[in-house]
């Protein structure tokens, strides 16, 4: 089962490496990991997506807690939360399909961030599921390059 785990960590060099090393040393699945500073510059928030059964996920959470640089570990999976991922994608642009592409960008509420004679770069923000669908739909038009941020997530406010 997919789990989304939010981890507050010390904003120090090597912290990301400690977490990644722990996942590989323990043989845990690591689907995506993203990290960025929080409102407190000494603390970063890490969002980890992993696939594991309940017993393993318990171990994952405990092992994360055991790292000295982790401050708080929350499994958001079964709690109200918002999850988003950013997709940047460059597509081939041909005169004949131009119209269709623009329509699809609208459907996915994407934004054009760059446009050239033969290519167009768009950004799409959404749940990882939506990002997967976006990529599937655009594939036939010719994807030249794409980059995904990995999921970031946060608790819904009270």
């Amino acid at each position, binding site marked *: 089962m997919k789990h989304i785990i939010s981890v507050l*960590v*010390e904003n120090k060099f*090597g912290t990301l*490496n*400690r977490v990644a*090393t*722990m996942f590989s*040393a323990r043989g845990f699945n690591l689907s995506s990991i993203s990290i960025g500073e929080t409102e407190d510059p000494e603390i970063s928030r890490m969002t980890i997506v992993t696939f594991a059964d309940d*017993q393993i996920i*318990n*171990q994952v959470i*405990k*092992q994360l*807690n*055991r*790292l*000295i*640089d*982790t*401050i708080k570990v929350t499994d958001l999976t079964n709690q109200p939360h918002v999850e988003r991922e950013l997709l940047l994608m460059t597509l081939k642009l041909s005169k004949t399909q131009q119209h269709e592409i623009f329509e699809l960008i609208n459907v996915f509420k994407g934004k054009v961030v760059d446009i050239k004679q033969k290519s167009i770069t768009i950004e799409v923000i959404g749940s990882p599921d939506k990002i997967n669908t976006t990529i599937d739909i655009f594939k036939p038009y010719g994807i030249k390059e794409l980059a995904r941020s990995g999921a970031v997530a946060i608790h819904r406010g009270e």
Partner: protein
Amino acid sequence: MHLSGHTLNGSEIFFECLRREHVEYIFGYPGGSLLKVYETLYEIQDIRHILVRHEQGATHMAEGYARATGKPGVVLVTSGPGATNTVTGIANAYMDSSPMVVFTGQVPSSLIGNDAFQEADIVGITRSITKHNFLVKDVKELALTIRKAFFLATTGRPGPVLIDMPKDVLNSSCAFHWPESVDIRGFKPTIKCHINQVEKAAHKIAKAKRPLLYIGGGVISAEASEELRAFAIKQNIPVTMTLQGLGAFPGNHPLSMGMLGMHGTYWSNQAVNACDVLIAVGARFDDRVTGKIDTFAPHAFKIHNDIDPTNVDKNIKVDLPIVGDAKDFLAVLLEETPNTVENREPWLAEIQSWREQCPLTYNMEDGALRTEFVIDEVSKQTAGHAVVVTDVGQHQMWTSQYYTFMNPRSIITSGGLGTMGFGLPAAIGAAFGITDRPVVLFCGDGGIMMNIQELVTAVHCKTPIKIFLINNSFLGMVRQWQELFHKEKYSFTDLADSNPDFIKVAEAFGCKALAAETPDAAKAAIKEALAYKDGPILVDFRVVKKDMVFPMVPAGGSISDMLLARLNPKTMV
């Protein structure tokens, strides 16, 4: 105190911090990036530096010292190869939860990452084998980092912590301030057990007809032996111990069952199989203990106390997890359990019948010298009160079976990592910490060669360790597996043609040495060695070559299903 606020350089701060941490011994080896530290050390009288002959030796000595005393062991080595040589020792301390602080020199900050001379990314290398590690980038952070390292190494589940100190940090100066307290927001171990959980455990135990205590090294590191003894006796519960737990409960007590697991006693493993409540304290359900997981303690309600939450439900799903310190757990349990005890006599009688059915025995008829005899004899001559250090292999398992451990902190052995070469340096380290009891080492002829250079350290320091070399001219445990499970292909385990003359080796190092080939000679040699006080002494016991350790649970088998003797008796000759 008097130096607080004074301007000191990094290496002076380093030693001032060690003083504040009450460090008595440093096990170390100098080198380029530590020249400033060794310059300062030259004038220091109150901290003793033990010069090892290989950095791996330093780490095992520090661990031996730590395990014997409960105080953290301190290692000081230079950058690059000095640092990488500590890796095995650090991994060993990590697996066996020994408190240790390793200081490594590092190339100057400006050169880090440039493939500088004697540079290694030791913080990166040791990330997964330390409890935590640090690179000090500014001399102003040095004191706090050292304070944190000792706090982490000794608090909660103990373990090794490494501090990497670049040369320029050690050379530069700042005002010295010793942080009186330390707070790490990501490190808040649960020490006190949840009282409701302990009450539940007490209730369950009070009603149990066939309870069993399964005791691990956590009871030793928590200094909880007194509480364990009081609780086991009050509730009349038999006690089986892991390799690291031996000595937590006196080995000669009728409730003591010795070790469980792969080479544990038959009656311990049968009791695990038959118990109705299993109380695991400071133990981690290691695969060498459990054998096949689905058949481990199948009828038992499992209670598990451990200071490290990751140990709970890691290998085996338990019914009642209790995170916290073993001392707290056992003390509260002692209070919470009733004074009137369920009748446990039928259970103890059943265990006794298993004990009689398959006792620990060895061949005493043929007049040959056997490891079991040597260990048994050392156990008798020291009345079970020695600090016993072992290396890894057959002699280690026989030690668990034939030495009657009477006190905690008396077995110092590489359990988790199984590091051959651990024994000799660990014994030297233990002997610096413990001077009122003999420190004896059982070591195979394979393992002793893996850190033989430390014999010089022992000779130079006149460390009075008793090196009992169990010499069967084989890598005996590997040979045993080859015989049992690998078609008797004795691939690269016969050392008869390549072993050195150990008496000459010892003498070349300046170490007194004896040899023994018969039980009578062995008895006399043990007596002489135990009486010898002028430094290390080595006894080369030339034991029979092809004995095997029994009973044995084949790897992955159920622990109720033990091999009691050779499959093919013909292989004995």
